[in-house]
Every structure is written in structure tokens, then in C-alpha cells.
């Protein structure tokens, strides 16, 4: 199935690769015949949902699969050698030397009990066949190149002494230290904050341009793909379903799956209010034998012949291939599941609510004091929240954004009374409930769904047993699940279904405010859209107010009426969502927005972005001036001397910056 001409400068050639995992319960066919080429200097992004086999595919390339994974057939050529035929010893000569790998989670990908230098230097000595001294010099040079300040000293540091962003830089320095021809990056920025993610992506782009290495980049973030890649491969159920130049794929996607994926992302440029498209159903079970097109169950354009035989990757336009019987995918046939808002009686039954505050926060502070065991040492104060004032109208959504460590989750905990504020007041008209981030760990696995939803009612002794059962049944219908789910355990549900249960549980006590702390960050894009749509519907139907906390700015923009941007425990900008996004006033807001890649390669190419350097300063230190002064591109002398208070600069908007008047 060679669909691409053989070219001499091909760094990587994959032909009909199959990877299987022989588990006790059956053979998981994770990769089912993938073929592609990668040339020098090319950056290819592999996108797909979790379970699409993209990581298994990437790890197969250097046979780094955990037991019981195995490349069962096909050909992988790197530097002219067929990886599938090499011995373990020959492989070890290629790993690290010809192929560098950057992994997803920098917090766990470096050996915690070894100094950075001890992890970096020995592979350099081995692969480049040089001595300890020269290897150390190379290691320091690379650390310097990836932006580790004071590399000479930091090479002696342990990973735990560095932040996540710094560790990922170390990972990159390590992966590149032997000048590999190919770099495999498995979701290298997923665990990082947007601002750091933007820095890392810039860094990888520059370094590959400099060294001419080819790069295979795995991600589920289509915005990143647009910013980073010049080729895209879309994976579904272990196969490439679409492959081509990034500009083509974004401008003219041909496979129904790619087309749907692109429509699940909230768009910042156009006025919102259309419902997000959601892809129905689930990816197929990879243990089952597959007949026909694997996407047909979820495809709106599926025909009878999709059941009987699977389409191969076929030529569409120049270098652009798609595996679908329909040349134009969805656009040629029916439109995708048109999930228009169900125009039931809701608009009639809920009159526009009177504007009134359901939540008011005044000058909220939370300081954590850590005492030393030595009586003479000064106790240290961590100012997690430092004077936050916010209000929220009935039936509206307030989005809180900011990097990790900015205090947004602490605010959420105080709203629910899980933490006591050090100073300041919170007024809530009614009750507040929470939807948690991780639907996999926020339920007791030994409780049935019915009992999970019923629990808050039992705790507060609401109603009789029959009334509670009635309430639970209506709740589960309200979040769009069938009542038969009530008898199941959380482990029998998918991530999206679990998060629906989380929402139902939060609604059980008829709260006036629901606090959602990163409710979609653990979910796949297609499922994320479902949950966001659900929250929007509930807001309209029940008149509930939401506090939506997230670092995913596109989602926040989509769902929120007002947005508060937090930095180091303070609100630096507040205003209507559209205004804040279209015309950010505070330099930090601007930087955050610049950091988000937009899913449009053409726009990304022309975009002038100003990335902020550095990382969040420690909240333990006490600043006299503006908290953002250390990273602000527009910093003035005044900023370091006096702290700008947050003040209104137009009718609806507030910002804390000396430049805004």
C-alpha cells in the first residue's frame, strides 16, 4: 500500500504496520495497518481521540511498547534500518541516538532520584562516543538552548527542584542531545499551562528548524496542530483515516471524522450561540474483529456498503488522502447529526430572569501559613487568594481563567465552604454545589449510580424514600441519560456519562450556583462538546448560575457571560466574555489569548503573537508592585513600585493595570 513516492531524504518510512496487545481477555488490535513517510525537517501531527491507537503507533516506531504490546507485522525504516528486524541491542543504539522521544507528563518522566546531569550525560557519552567532560559540555549547551537559566548550576539539580515547564525543557534537551534525525513527541504539552505550552511549542519548532530533524507529534489539540504541524495524520480505530498537508486538512477536510472533530471546537472568531457539534457514540472495541468502515456507527453519511467493506486511504487532492467511500465525506451526503437545541417549551416557561446577584464575593483572602519545626524560624505565608471581589447574576455563567497556581480552585473551594476564608465575605442566595474535574475518581466505585445521585438528598434528609427515588429519576433524565443507568456502577460508564452523573449529583439539592472546576479537562474533544452543551441547556432550562473554572480558554469563552482573569490570587481583568476576548485590556489577558493556538493554520501562520517569558512567580514571595511585573512585556518603572488596583475603565469592564485608564 505504498501511496507515496520513495524519496531519498525520508527519515521514517512506515509500511502497513500492525501492533497488537495480547491481553487475557483478547487481542487488542491497537494499530491496524498504518503507512506513511516522514522527510527531513517535516513536522507531522497525529491526532485522534484516546483509544485511537496514536500513542501505540508512536511507541511502535521504536518498539517501546509495554508488555504485552508487540509490532506483529509491517515495516518501519529509520535511517535505512528496518526497526522490526533489529535485535534489542541494535535497537538500543538507535533509541536516543537516531530517535529522540519527548513524553507527555514531565512530572513523572524524569527519574526522581537522579540529578539531571546523571540522566543526560551517560547517553551522550555512549551515543556520541565521547568522554565525560565533553558530554557534560554538550548537556549544558543543550540545557542552555532549551532555555534553562543558569544551566551550569541547574545540571546538578534534581527534577523535583524544577517546575513542570522546566522539566519538559530538560526532557527536550535530553531527547535532542544526540542530534536525532527523528523526534517523537507524545502529547508533550498536555500537562502544561497554556502560556508554558506556547513556549514549549515555539521551542520545539525552532529547534527542529535548526537541526533539520523530522518530528512526529501526537496531540488531541487541533489548535496546536494548526500552529505547529505541516502535515497531519488523523487516526481512528488504529488506522489513518486522513493524511495530508495541514493547510489542506483544516481548509478542506474530507473524512467525516476529521470534519466532525473540527466542528467540535468552539470558535472564538464568530459570534457564539450555535450549539457545539457532538460526535455521537463511542469508538469501536478494538478487541472485536472489524468488518467495514470502523467509523460507520458514528457517521451521519454512512451507507450500506460502509458495513461490508472498509475504504483504503485514497488520493483526494495533491498529497491529501482520505479513507472514505465518499470523496467529500459528510459535505457530499447528509450533514452531521444536527443537534439543534431542543426548542421545547423552555423559552416560554422561563421568563427572562430579573437581574439579581446570586453570588457576591467581597475582598476574599485565603492565606496558608506554614510553620517551621524550628521555633526561631519565621513562618511562611502562601497567599493563595489575595483580595478577590466578584459577583454573579442569576442565570449567568462566570468563567474564571488563569494558570495553575493562580488561586482559582481555592476560590471554588471557599465558595463551597470547603475552606474558610482568611478575610472577606461570600454571599450566596441559595446553595452552591460542585461538579468535579475527574469523573473517574470523584465517585465511590462501590456505589451504584442511583445511590451516588441520591446521596446529597440522604445526607440532608430530604423527602421520603419514594420522593427521593422520583427526584433521582428526573435528575438522570435531565442530564440526558436513560433511567436504566441508575442500576450501574461508575466503572460501567464512559467518561462523558460519568460527568453527566456528576452534574446530576450537583443538581440534586436544587442549587442556585453550580461551581464547575475544570469539568471537561479529563474528557476527549467530542465528549467535551456534549458536556458543554448539557451545561448550557441546564442554564437555560433551570436558570442556574454557573461558576466555570478552566484553563481551556476557548471553552470558557463559549460558555461564559462574564470572565474573570486571575493572576497570583488576584483578579486582573473582569468583563463580558466577548469583550475580554476580542479586546483584552490587561497584558496578562493578552498573553493568555496569544498563547492559545487557533485551529486554522492560515491564521496561525500570519499571527503576530507575543509570548510571555518565564513562569508564575512563587506565591510565597511578597511583591510591592504589580504581581505581573516580572513577566509583563509592557512593564514600566511605576509597575514595580505601586500595585495597580482593579478599577472600572468602561461601563462593564474592570482591569488592574497602570496602562488602562
Amino acid at each position, binding site marked *: 500500500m505504498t501511496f507515496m513516492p520513495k524519496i531519498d531524504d525520508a527519515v521514517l518510512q512506515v509500511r502497513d504496520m500492525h501492533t497488537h496487545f495480547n491481553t487475557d481477555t483478547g487481542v487488542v488490535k491497537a494499530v491496524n495497518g498504518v503507512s506513511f513517510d516522514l522527510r527531513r525537517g517535516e513536522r507531522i501531527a497525529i491526532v485522534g481521540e484516546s483509544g485511537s491507537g496514536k500513542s501505540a503507533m508512536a511507541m511502535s516506531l*521504536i518498539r*517501546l511498547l*509495554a*508488555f*504485552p504490546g508487540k509490532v506483529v507485522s509491517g515495516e518501519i525504516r529509520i535511517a535505512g534500518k528496518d526497526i522490526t528486524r533489529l535485535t*534489542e*541491542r541494535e535497537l*538500543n*543504539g*538507535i*533509541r*536516543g*541516538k537516531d*530517535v*529522540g*522521544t519527548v*513524553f507527555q*507528563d514531565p512530572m*513523572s*518522566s*524524569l*527519574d*526522581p*532520584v*537522579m540529578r539531571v546531569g546523571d*540522566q543526560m550525560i551517560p*547517553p551522550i557519552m*555512549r*551515543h556520541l562516543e565521547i568522554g565525560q567532560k565533553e558530554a557534560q559540555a554538550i548537556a549544558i549547551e543543550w540545557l542552555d538552548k532549551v532555555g534553562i537559566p543558569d544551566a551550569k548550576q541547574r545540571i546538578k539539580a*534534581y527534577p*523535583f527542584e524544577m517546575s513542570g515547564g522546566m522539566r519538559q525543557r530538560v*526532557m527536550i534537551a*535530553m*531527547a535532542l542531545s544526540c542530534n536525532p534525525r527523528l523526534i517523537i513527541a507524545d502529547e508533550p504539552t498536555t500537562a502544561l499551562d497554556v502560556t508554558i505550552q506556547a513556549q514549549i511549542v515555539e521551542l520545539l519548532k525552532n529547534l527542529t528548524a535548526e537541526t533539520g530533524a523530522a518530528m512526529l507529534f501526537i496531540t488531541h489539540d487541533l489548535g496546536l496542530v494548526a500552529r505547529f504541524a505541516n502535515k497531519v495524520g488523523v487516526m481512528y480505530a488504529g488506522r489513518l483515516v486522513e493524511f495530508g498537508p495541514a493547510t489542506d486538512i483544516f481548509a478542506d477536510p474530507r473524512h467525516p471524522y476529521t470534519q466532525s472533530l473540527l466542528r467540535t471546537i468552539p470558535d472564538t472568531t464568530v459570534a457564539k450561540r450555535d450549539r457545539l457539534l457532538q460526535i455521537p457514540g463511542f469508538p469501536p472495541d478494538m478487541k472485536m474483529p472489524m468488518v467495514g468502515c470502523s467509523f460507520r456507527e458514528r457517521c451521519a453519511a454512512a451507507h450500506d456498503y460502509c458495513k461490508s467493506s472498509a475504504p483504503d486511504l485514497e488520493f483526494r487532492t495533491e498529497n491529501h488522502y482520505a479513507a472514505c467511500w465518499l470523496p467529500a465525506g459528510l459535505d457530499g451526503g447528509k450533514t452531521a447529526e444536527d443537534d439543534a437545541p431542543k426548542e421545547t417549551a423552555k423559552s416560554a416557561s422561563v421568563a427572562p430572569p430579573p437581574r439579581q446577584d446570586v453570588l457576591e464575593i467581597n475582598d476574599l483572602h485565603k492565606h496558608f501559613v506554614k510553620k*517551621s*519545626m*524550628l521555633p526561631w*524560624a519565621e513562618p511562611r505565608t502562601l497567599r493563595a487568594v489575595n483580595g478577590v471581589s466578584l459577583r454573579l447574576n442569576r442565570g449567568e455563567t462566570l468563567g474564571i481563567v488563569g494558570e495553575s497556581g493562580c488561586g482559582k480552585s481555592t476560590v471554588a473551594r471557599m465558595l463551597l465552604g470547603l475552606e474558610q476564608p482568611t478575610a472577606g465575605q461570600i454571599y450566596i442566595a441559595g446553595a452552591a454545589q460542585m461538579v468535579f474535574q475527574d469523573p473517574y475518581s470523584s465517585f465511590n466505585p462501590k456505589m451504584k449510580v442511583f445511590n451516588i445521585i441520591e446521596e446529597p438528598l440522604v445526607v440532608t434528609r430530604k423527602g421520603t424514600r419514594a420522593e427521593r427515588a422520583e427526584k433521582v429519576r428526573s435528575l438522570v433524565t435531565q442530564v440526558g441519560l436513560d433511567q436504566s443507568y441508575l442500576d450501574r456502577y461508575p466503572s460501567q460508564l464512559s467518561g462523558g456519562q460519568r460527568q453527566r452523573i456528576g452534574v446530576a449529583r450537583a443538581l440534586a439539592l436544587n442549587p442556585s450556583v453550580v461551581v464547575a472546576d475544570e469539568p471537561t479537562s479529563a474528557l476527549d474533544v467530542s465528549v467535551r462538546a456534549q458536556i458543554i452543551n448539557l451545561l448550557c441547556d441546564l442554564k437555560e432550562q433551570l436558570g442556574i448560575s454557573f461558576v466555570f473554572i478552566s484553563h481551556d480558554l476557548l471553552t470558557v469563552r463559549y460558555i461564559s457571560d462574564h470572565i474573570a482573569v486571575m493572576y497570583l490570587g488576584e483578579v486582573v481583568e473582569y468583563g463580558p466574555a466577548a469583550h475580554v476576548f476580542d479586546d483584552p485590556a490587561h497584558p496578562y489577558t493578552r498573553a493568555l489569548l496569544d498563547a492559545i493556538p487557533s485551529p486554522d493554520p492560515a491564521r496561525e501562520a500570519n499571527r503576530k503573537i507575543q509570548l510571555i517569558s518565564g513562569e508564575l512567580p512563587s506565591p510565597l514571595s511578597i511583591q510591592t508592585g504589580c504581581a505581573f511585573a516580572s513577566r509583563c512585556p509592557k512593564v514600566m518603572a511605576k509597575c514595580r513600585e505601586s500595585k495597580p488596583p482593579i478599577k472600572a475603565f468602561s461601563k462593564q469592564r474592570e482591569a488592574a493595570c497602570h496602562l488602562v485608564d
Partner: protein
Amino acid sequence: MLAYSLKRILQLIVTTLGVVTLVFFTLRLIPGDAASAMAGDTLSGEALQRLREQMGLSRPLGEQYFSYLRGLLSFKLGETITTGLSISSLLLSAIPITLTIALATITLALSIAVPLGTMAAFMAHKGYRTLDNLITGAAMLADLMPSFWTALVFLLLFSLTLGIFPASGTISLEDPRAFLMRLALPVLVLSVTQIAAMARITRTAVLEVLSEDYIRTARSMGWSELQVLFRHALKNAALPIVTIVGLSFGSLLNGTVIVEFIFTIPGIGSLLVYGINSRDYQLVQTLIVFYALIFVTVNFVTDLVYKKLDPRVQF
């Protein structure tokens, strides 16, 4: 680190003081005192009272307690009540024997259990379950055998049938060869359980580490499987292993009492058995304090080793 060490040393002192106090008063709650034990049926009324005064037993309890504390601090441990021998010289001759048994057992156990457990973990990680099951199964079986039973079996096998090690005889440091030959059997017996426990812990710890992300990173840099195992995996797995070694010291001391009794070895354990049988309070309370002191010290050392092994440990 300084703050932590200070705190731990303070804890160590308080714990030891607590043990001393508890032992002192508990032993005096038991009906019948040292004087009556010593006298047996031979003395009555007045004579017994005289003996008590002579032994200082008629003084107020608080006074006895403080004089005992003073004695401990200056290592004046007094004499055994029954035989009148100096307790400190008894201790000095028994400690080397018991400590040799304990340390030899730990060394032997570690040098067998760690490679065995690592091998099992590696095999399990690679999916070769047979060897892993074999090692794990054997460890479980060994763990089930009580040491008094293994002691008797080993005695039968190695001394009486094969005649490799002596079953009895004098023990003295002057003849190191004989000394070691005589201690070999108790060490072997004690090692069986220790090896079983440590091998299981090592297997679990290494297996867990092997699926960590940084192991994959090491492989991606071209380290061979063996290098990954020894450079990265074992170093990270050392923490739980050190913990179990520290904790098992307690059960090990327990074991020495039994094997010393069975193999008639004049260590601390035999001394304790003798002291209890003859109701020699002076001796028993000193020995218990000694055991407590060893245990607390071992824990203290474990924590310091922890800090040394894992730079992340914060106090």
C-alpha cells in the same frame, strides 16, 4: 534536615523514657516481688522484710524509680537479683552474639532476597509468568513456616544428619571460626522468613517502578534492560525495601529469642528467657529497655537512610 534530626532525637528520648517507665511500673504491678522470688519458700515474715530492705524494695516506689533512672544513665545496671552477677557484664558478653546473628541474617537475607525479588519483578514485567510465580510461591511457602519449626528441621538436617554445623558447644569470640560455625544455623533459620518477606517486597516495589514513566524515558535513551533495572529501577525501589528492613528488625529480634533458646546460644534472648523464668525483675526490665533502644535507633537510622536515598524527602 537539622530541624528534622532534632525532632527525631527528641522523639527518640521521649519514647525510650516512656518504655523505661512503663516497664518499671508494669513489672511492679505483678503480684510477688523479687525478694519473695529470691527467697522462695525458705524465708518468712521478718526475714523477708529484711531482705526487701536490703534490696531497696521497701523504699517508696518513686524513689526506686529515680534511682533506677540514674543507674541507667550512668550504665550502672546493678546486679541480677538471683545470682548477683553484674548485669552490665552479662549484657556486654551477650550483645555481640545477638547482634552478630541479627546483622548476619539481614546481610544474608538482603543479598539473596533483593536479586531474587528483582528477577521475579523483571520476569513479571516482561510477561514470563512461570518464573515469577515460582519465586513468589516459594516465598509465600517460606513465610508460612514458623521459625521454631524450621529451627528443628534445620537442626535435624544440618547437624544431626549431614553434620555440617555443630548443634551445641561453647561460644567465644576468641575462636572466630568456631564462633561463626556455631551461629550459622540460627542465622540460616532466621533468614528463611526474612528472605521471604524481603523478596516479596522487592518484587512489588521493582515491578511498580518498572511501569513508571521515567523507566520508559530511560529506555527511549537507549539504556539496555539490565542498565534500566540497576541504574533506575532498583534505586527507586530501594525506599520500600529499606522500610521493610527497618521494620523487620523487630520481628528479627523476636526470632533471636526463639533460636537462641533452641540452639542454646548465650545471647540476649537466652538471657531474657532466663530472667523471666527466675522472675529477675532487674534483669528483665533492663533487657526490655535495651530492646526498645535498639528498635528506636534502627527506626531513626532508617529515616536518615531514606533522606539519603530520596532527595525529595522533606521534613
